[in-house]
């Protein structure tokens, strides 16, 4: 491998790591910005969010089961 090729490779690697780090930093910034939910957590809100979580867990379980049956059938 020539010296030029090595430097291009390193540049590419730097660009990828810079971009990845940039995105990670942005996500952290967003998480920090919204870390305190503005919604008042009344019992109704808590109950609704709990029901929503349970609903999604059941739905994901059904999707995983379907995926498993499709894969094992094949």
């Amino acid at each position, binding site marked *: 491998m020539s010296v030029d090729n090595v430097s291009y490779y390193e540049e590419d690697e730097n660009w990828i790591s810079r971009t990845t780090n940039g995105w990670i930093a942005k996500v952290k910034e*967003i998480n920090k910005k*919204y870390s305190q*939910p*503005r919604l008042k957590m009344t019992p109704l809100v808590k109950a609704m*969010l709990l029901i929503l979580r349970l609903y*999604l867990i059941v*739905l994901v379980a059904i*999707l995983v089961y379907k995926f498993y049956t499709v894969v094992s059938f094949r």
Partner: protein
Amino acid sequence: MEFWASLFYKYRRFVKWLSLYLALAGPGIIVMVADNDAGGITTYAATGAKFGYSLIWFVILLGPAAFAVQEMCVRLGVVTKRGHAEAIFDAFGPFWGWFSLIDLGFLDFLTLISEFVGMTAAMRVFGVPPVVTVICVSILMILIVMNGRYWTWEKIVLLFCGLNLIYIPATLLLHPDFNQIQRSLIPYFPNGITPNIFFFLMANIGTTIAPWMLFFHQSSVVDKGLTEKDMPWARFDTVIGSFFVILVAAFVMILTGMLLYKPPDGTDIENAAQAAQVIMGSHPLVGSALAIGLFDAGLLGAICISLASSWAMGEVFGWTHSINNKVSEAPLFYAFYFVSLVAAGTVVLIPGAPLVLITLFVQVIAVTLLPAALVFLILLLNQEELMGKYKNTLAQNIIGFSIVAMIVALSTLYALSVLFPEMF
């Protein structure tokens, strides 16, 4: 001259009212008409071919339900001046925020693919190869947003909304029996509630209220810059949109009901393009109108869906995200729009791509986002500190919760019926 002057004087209030409405009209009509996307037209065409006029009454009932949901988005957007994605992050924190954003991005991308499937199928009826359709549509969609003015974008899209009404003259050409249609408006289920009819009811609900609509409508209200004093107009705009969405749906059902329905079991069609192809043999003009309408529906859906994702990403990541900005002023917002558009178009062109599976998968993924987005909407609308005098009233909450419960239950059952067809 005097005649026109006196006419103007006589109707000056109406003219003033109309010009004000035309200035403020847009988001409500666009979101509702775009709701009749390629998947929607296919669902209505299949329902008409299978059950004739029997289920038109059910689709009419969905109009007020769609209005109730979208009206809440208008209120939230006008009062908070924030899009739906940003509002969820702000009110519910990063967990629900990321869940909604990632789910929306994934779902919108799959739906965008299904719009391209619809558009390519529609143009194939006229012998246009898919690759030409995808390239032309992508260029057209890029040109529409690149002018850097929300107003221009909105008026161009409203023209495409007008083209969506093509089903009305196409149906009228067939001289439908309006007495028979009127009789079918009394709610009843032909042969009772069978698993088959239940599947179609669920499909119609699933296509009338989609998650991207909440995000798109709220963001477009914000981008248009509507304020609290414009609220009555924005509501009226949504009423007009709900009327058109149901009108088009009903006419598609009448059209396929007249030409494809064969009693007692009806006809099974796979998509609207197939229906257009069949109709083309006996009624070339009507078949062409159905194909043009399908293409237009796919185009409208694609425009709104790709913008819904781009607005949502822009809101959360803090990019400049207005159609009022030029490409150089909002590069990441437009880049996301272009990339998602080109990627979805490319998927359609891949030989052997599982397009039918993707179209079915859209329905399943939608039910992971729709309940969450609707619940968040109702909870946000009940926050007095956020909404002030525009907070939901008791009556609005009762209506809202009932609609949300019905939509969540039926769309979940629909997704289950897609996953496990033997269940129903």
